[in-house]
């Protein structure tokens, strides 16, 4: 211990001597003389200061987006030694690179509001970008790259509920890609990139072709008309007739797949996806789903066929239009073609099949209604008479046997 102050003094003197000589690397050498020496820091740190926190090995900084910068470029108030003992005063905005600090987009964000209201540092620059291991913007933009995954991990470190490693987006898309790099908003804010009316454009950044077909279809047009701001609660109330956005059908955290508590019933993830989509359509389209499940298509799908027609096979997945619209896949001008995508031999007669039958509705198809009533009358009549026959016979023999009457052999 006695030798330590002497040693530190010598180092400090060396540092002071080195400073005026200039040159980035030389600057850093002076700083690193102390800050790359854990033993020294341990001996010299003021009371209450974590010496490990002061330890700055040069490797991460050199490998980072700030690799060609010197310590003093950010640490502007640390030119003299000993350093001011007070709080760190680094501001990213003082450099010539980031002229605005805080970032103007961040200022209106939910993070900024939380920081202001609670005093808790919520996602300010270094919380997300790191301190000495800042990633370059170009690296952050590499889909699925290490920089992007590191950034996602820093988001998840607070937003743990949104961590879904098996999600198809987990290692391909950045959080900021959907939620805006700095301007994250409240969940019900119309300015959020994932607000109902803005969501299509956000998803379109990657899924342009799909989004294009959904912009003006029945769902997209209704969404614009309704001008919904708040997200849809799931499961939705069918009576509200609220048009869905991308995530209402596809989910977000995680993306829609098989329900997590159910065992996969089909041969492939694509089929699981189809089945989950049927469940989602059915959440709003209750009556059509019920009639669909009366058909072989519906029953086989429910039991995991994966081949049997589900909603999207006939109605389209995106670009869904009402049947009387010429753009609809089930419009009379296109339905033969639609059916023929599975049933190759489909002709005009074939498509008179009712994919959403209502056997109890005489107006929809009197023949179907008639056969439904007739068959059930036979069923109930026959079983009624002969169940009674059976029960009475059973009772008669039992009574006779008990009283020893009759000629029953047992």
């Amino acid at each position, binding site marked *: 211990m006695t030798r330590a102050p002497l040693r530190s003094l010598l180092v400090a003197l060396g540092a002071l001597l080195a400073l005026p000589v200039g040159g980035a690397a030389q600057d850093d050498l002076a700083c690193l003389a102390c800050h790359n020496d854990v033993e020294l820091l341990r001996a010299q740190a003021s009371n209450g200061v974590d010496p490990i926190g002061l330890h700055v090995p040069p490797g991460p900084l050199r490998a980072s987006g700030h690799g060609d910068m010197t310590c003093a470029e950010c640490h502007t108030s640390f030119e003299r030694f000993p350093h001011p003992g007070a709080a760190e005063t680094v501001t990213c905005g003082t450099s010539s690179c980031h002229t605005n600090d805080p970032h103007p987009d961040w200022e209106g964000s939910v993070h900024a509001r939380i920081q202001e209201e609670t005093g808790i540092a919520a996602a300010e620059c270094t919380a997300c970008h790191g301190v000495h291991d800042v990633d370059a913007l170009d690296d952050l933009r590499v889909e699925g790259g290490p920089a992007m995954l590191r950034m996602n991990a820093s988001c998840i470190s607070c937003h743990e509920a949104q961590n879904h490693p098996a999600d198809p987006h987990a290692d391909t898309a950045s959080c900021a890609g959907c939620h805006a790099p700095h301007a994250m908003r409240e969940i019900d804010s119309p300015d959020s990139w994932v607000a109902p009316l803005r969501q299509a454009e956000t998803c379109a950044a990657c899924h342009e072709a799909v989004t294009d077909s959904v912009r003006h279809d029945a769902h997209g047009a209704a969404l614009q008309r309704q001008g919904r701001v708040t997200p849809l609660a799931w499961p939705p109330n069918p009576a509200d007739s609220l048009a869905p956005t991308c995530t209402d059908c596809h989910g977000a955290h995680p993306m829609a797949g098989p329900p997590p508590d159910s065992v996969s*019933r089909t*041969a492939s993830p694509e089929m699981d996806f189809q089945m989950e989509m049927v469940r989602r359509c059915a959440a709003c389209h209750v009556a059509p789903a019920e009639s669909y*499940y*009366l*058909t*072989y298509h*519906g*029953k*086989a799908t*429910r*039991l*995991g*066929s994966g*081949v*049997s027609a589900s909603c999207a096979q006939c109605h389209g997945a995106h670009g869904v239009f009402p049947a009387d619209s010429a753009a609809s896949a089930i419009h009379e001008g296109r339905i033969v073609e639609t059916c023929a995508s599975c*049933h*190759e*031999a*489909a*002709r005009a*007669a*074939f*498509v*008179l*099949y*009712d994919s959403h*039958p209502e*056997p109890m509705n005489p107006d929809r*198809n009197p*023949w*179907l209604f008639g*056969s*439904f009533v007739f*068959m*059930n009358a*036979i*069923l109930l009549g*026959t*079983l009624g008479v*002969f*169940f009674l*026959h*059976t029960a*009475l*016979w*059973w*009772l*008669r*023999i*039992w009574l006779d*046997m008990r009283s*020893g009457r009759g*000629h*029953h*052999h*047992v």
Partner: protein
Amino acid sequence: MSEETLVQETVVQEERPVPMDSAQRGDGPFVWRFLLWHRLAHALAILTFYTLVLTGLPLRYSSAPFSPALIDFFGGVERAGFIHRTAGGIMIGYTLIYIVYLVARLWKNREKRLAWLWGSDSLVPHPQDARDFIQQWKYFFGKAEPARFGRYGYLEKLDFLGEVWGFVIIGGSGVLLWFPEFFGAFLPGWWFNVATVLHGVEALLATCFIFVVHFFNVHVRPDKWPMDAVMFHGRATVQYMEEEHPEMMDQIEAVIDEPISETPIPDRRAPAPGRRASFIASAFGFLALAIGFAIIGMILWAVTFS
């Protein structure tokens, strides 16, 4: 129950050679009731019918809790569908063979035709069946003696006619749904909607009728239960025939004095079924009964569930 009746019952139980088979009741000589082809046809009917019910039921009640497990047992929907259509094809096949046989047998021979239609062995409903039916209901309320059935009582005729009706309705709609593209070329598509209803409701009727009414009449009547294996080994005692088919037994009374015929010839004296034949017949019967009742349980479960 008094002590006396208990003793009585025990004695009766011991008298039976195989107490689990009501076709072997009493000590009497045996007669041949069903020939080999009857029994094979019945066994084939059981195998195909059970296969059709077990593969069709999960589709009819697709939201029932047991349906996914049943479908998985058959290897998925597509495979279950293949098995269902195969069993249906076999059923249609043997029914057509039977129809061809019947037509060939009766076509040219007027006497045989009349016997098949109006003879005492006929499976066709006669006015007597209506009278028996009414008498049976009176008997249930203690107002008449039980009806005296011939070779086939109205319940057996009903089983047979049910198969004819079922063949037309279920078989016809099944074939229609099997080849939608073929039939859809000239039939309007809503026929498939009608066929779906016909197929499902008639199949439910057939299943409930066989597994409740047929099972009760044949196997689990209090004086027959737990098993009547006559259809499995083909033989029944004279006592059984006198009690179950008295009208017929009156006509073949003389058979009791004849020598035993080892080969199955209708209404000849038969050797008593051996232990092995009895065991196999009863085991097959019990398995069929158990599965049938389980299916009724599943239907009740599905109906209550939905």
